[in-house]
C-alpha cells in the first residue's frame, strides 16, 4: 500500500491511499497515516478511490485515525470509495460514524465546518 498527502486550501489535508487495505497493506502505512492525521491538523479528507479491497483491519486503521482526530475536535471523512469497498463500509455501519462523500468540493465544505 502507498500513502501520500496534499495540503488543500484552508488547512484541509487530503490523504491519498492506494492498494489493498489488508493486514500487509495496512502495516506498511499505519505509522505514516498516524503522523499525517496528528495535531494540529483538524480537517482530514481520505481519498479512497484507489483502494480495491477493505478488510476489518483496514476498518480498524480508519477508525483509529478518525477517533484521534475527533478527540481533538477535528473532522475526518472518506472520499469516493469504490463500490465494493463502500458496501463493506455500509454493511458494517462505519459510514454512520465516518461520513462518506463522492464529491471533493462537498467533502471540503463538510470538513471545514
Amino acid at each position, binding site marked *: 500500500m502507498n500513502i501520500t498527502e496534499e495540503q488543500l486550501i484552508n488547512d484541509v489535508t487530503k490523504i491519498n491511499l492506494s492498494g489493498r487495505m489488508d493486514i500487509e497493506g495496512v502495516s506498511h502505512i499505519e505509522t505514516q497515516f498516524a503522523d499525517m492525521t496528528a495535531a494540529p491538523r483538524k480537517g482530514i479528507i481520505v481519498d479512497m478511490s484507489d483502494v480495491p479491497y477493505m478488510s*476489518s*483491519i483496514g*476498518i*480498524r486503521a480508519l477508525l483509529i485515525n478518525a477517533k484521534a482526530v475527533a478527540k481533538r475536535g477535528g473532522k475526518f471523512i472518506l472520499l469516493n470509495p469504490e463500490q465494493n469497498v463502500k458496501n463493506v463500509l*455500509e*454493511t*458494517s*455501519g*462505519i459510514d454512520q*460514524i465516518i461520513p462518506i462523500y463522492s464529491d471533493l468540493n462537498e467533502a471540503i465544505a463538510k470538513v471545514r465546518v
Partner: protein
Amino acid sequence: MVYYAMLAKTLVSKILHSVRSWPAVSGLLLLVTLHLFGAIPYQETLRTFSFDLYQMAFPRERVSAPVVIVDIDEESLKKYGQWPWPRSLVAQLLSRLLDMDPAAVAFDIIMPEPDRTSPCQITKYMHGIDQALVAKVCALPGNDALLAEEISRGNVVLGVAGIEQGSQHEVRAPPMQSIGPDPKNLMRHFNSALSNVAELDAAANGHAILSADVERGVVRKIPLTASVGNTVLPALSLEMLRLASGNPSFIVKSSDRGIESVGVKDLSIPTQADGSIWVHFSPHDPTRFISAALILEGKLDAELINRKLVLIGFSGLGLVDFPSTALGERVPGVEIHAQILESIFDGTTLQRPEWALWAEAGLMVVLGLLVALVFPRMKASLHVVILLAATAALIAGGLLIFRQYHLLVDVASPTLLFIVMYGATLADSLIREEVQLKALEDDLRKQREQAAKAQGEMEAAMRFQMGILPNASLTFRNEHRVDIAAKIEPAKMVGGDLYDCFMLDEHRLFFSVGDVCGKGIPASLFMVISKTLCKSVAMQDDMQQMDVGDIVRKANLEISRDNSEMLFVTAFIGILDLRTGVLNYCNAGHEKPLLAAAGCHPKELSGLSGPPISTWEDFEYKTHSYRLSSQEFLCIFTDGATEAFNLQQEEFGRPRLIELLSDVETETNADSIIKNTFLFIHNFVSGADPSDDLTMMVIKWKS
C-alpha cells in the same frame, strides 16, 4: 621483500588474534624446538625406518664392479679344512692373488693370535722328538713369517676392530692430513682395539679400522674414520683406495660444525659430522664373490683379479655374524665393505646434509601453521584432499631427493606431525561440536517443552473459551416454544467469534452472535470480555424495560471503556418474545442474517443499527423489529461463512449461502441446518486452511 614482510605481519597478527589457535601454535613451536634438539622420543627410529624405505624403493644400482670378494666359503673349508687355516695356507692364497696383480688386497679377518700350527710350535707337542730334528724344523720359516712375507709383497690392508673399553692401545695407522680443526675429538672413538699379530701388522702397508655401526643387528652407517686411543684410522674401504691410488696419506677435512669429508687426493667423500656415512645398499649379489678354493687351485682367470680391489673374508655360517642391511637382507659383513667401495667409486654415497634438520623444521612449521590457521577457515572436505596431496608430495619429494641427489631428508617427521596435528584439531573440533550439539539439543528440548506447554495452555484456553459458550440445543431442550442451535469452529485454537443465548425472563429469549475484528489470543480475550459485559448489561434489573438498542448502547459504553488495542466487535443482538414471535433486534455492523423457509427463497433481515460495538463510545443504536412466522428459520452467521476460501482463492460467498438455504425442508431442525451448512462449506474449502472462524446460529420460533 616488502610483500613478504607484510605477509609475515598478517600471519603474526592472525596468530595473535585467533585465540582458538593458540594451543595449536604453541604446541607446534614446542614440537619443532624438540625436533631441532633431537629430543622427540622415537623420532630417530622413525627417521631411520623412513630412510630404509627410501633404500628399498630405490636400491643402489651397481654401475661399476671394482670390488671382488675372495670368499673362504663352505666349499673352501671342505677342501682345505676348518678355520683357522694355517697361515701358510693363507700365505699361499695371498700369493696367488698378488700374482694376478690386484689394485689392493684387504683382509676382513683379524688374526690376533700367533699361528700354533707353525712347524716350530708343533714340535712343542711332539713327545720324545729328536732335538736335532727340532732344530731343523725350527729353522724353517714360521707360518706367520710366510704370511708376513707375502703381505709385504703388495698393497695389503690389515684391519683392527675397535673396542669401547679397555686400556689405551697403540695401533699402526697411515699418516693423516687434517684440514681445519683437529678432527680427533669429532669422530668415533675407541679406547682400544683388537688387532693382528705384530709381525703381520708390521709387514702391511695399509692399516684400517673394520668397525661398523650395528644397531639391532642392522648396519646402516659406517665410520670412514675413527680414533683408537690417540691414533686416527681410516676405514677399510678408504685405506684400500689410498693404497690403490698411491697416496701417502689420507685427508680429513673438518670445520667447527664437525667433519665435512674424508678422502685422498682427488677423491673427497662427504660424511656426517662424526665422520660416518650412511651406506647406500644394493641387493646381495653372488657375482661379487669368488671362492678361495678356486684361487688356491689356480683355476681362476686372472682378469677377474687384475686391477681390482680384493677383499678376503668369510661367508660360511657360524664363522661370522650376518648383519642385516637397510634392504632387510642378511649379508656377510665383507659384502658391506664391498658395497661401500662400489658407492664411493660410483659417486653414489649417501649423505644427510646439515641443512636437512632445518628444512624439516621449516616443513613442520609450514604444515603446522596450515593446520592451525588455514584449515579452520576451510571446508572439511578440502582438508582431506590437502592432507592426502601434501603427504603424497612430501613422500615423493623425499624419494626424489634421495634418488637424484643421494641426500637423506626426513619427510616422515613432518608428515607425521601434519597428520597428528590435523588429528588433534579434528578431535578438538569434534569435542567442541559435541558440546555445541548438546547445547543445541538442550535448547531444542526446552523449546519443545515450552511449545508443548504453550500448546497445553492454548488447549486449556480453548476449552475455557468454548466452555463459556452455552450449548444452545441442550439449554433449550425443554423450551418447546423455540428450536435453537449454535456452533463455532475457530480457525486457530482460540477464536474471535462468539454467541450467547439465555432467557431474559419467562417469555423473552436474548441471543447474540458476534465477530471480533482479528484472530488468535487478543481477539479471543476481547471476545470473552464482550460476551460477558453484554450479558451483564442485559441482566441488569433496570434493563428489563429497555429495548435492544439501549442495551447495545450501554454495552457499547462498557466495552469501549478500556480498549487501548482498538479492537471492535460486529454483533447481531436480538430479543425474541416467545409468546408472539416478535423479534426486536440490533445489527451493529454485522453480516445481515437470512430467513430460510421450505419452498421459499431466503430473505434478508435488513435493518442496520450502527457501527460495530466499541468503535464509537457514544452511539445511539437503533432497534429494528420483525415478526417471525413459525415456518421461518432465522440464520445468523459471521463472515467466516461467506468468506471461506478454497485452494483456488475463491470465496464461498453470500450467493452460495443463500442458494444453500433455499433448499431447507419442512421437517428439518436448527441443528440439522447448521450441520448441513458446515458440511457444505467444508467441502467447498476442502484442503485449504480456514481463514476465519466459522459461526452459525439458527433460531425457529414455534408458536
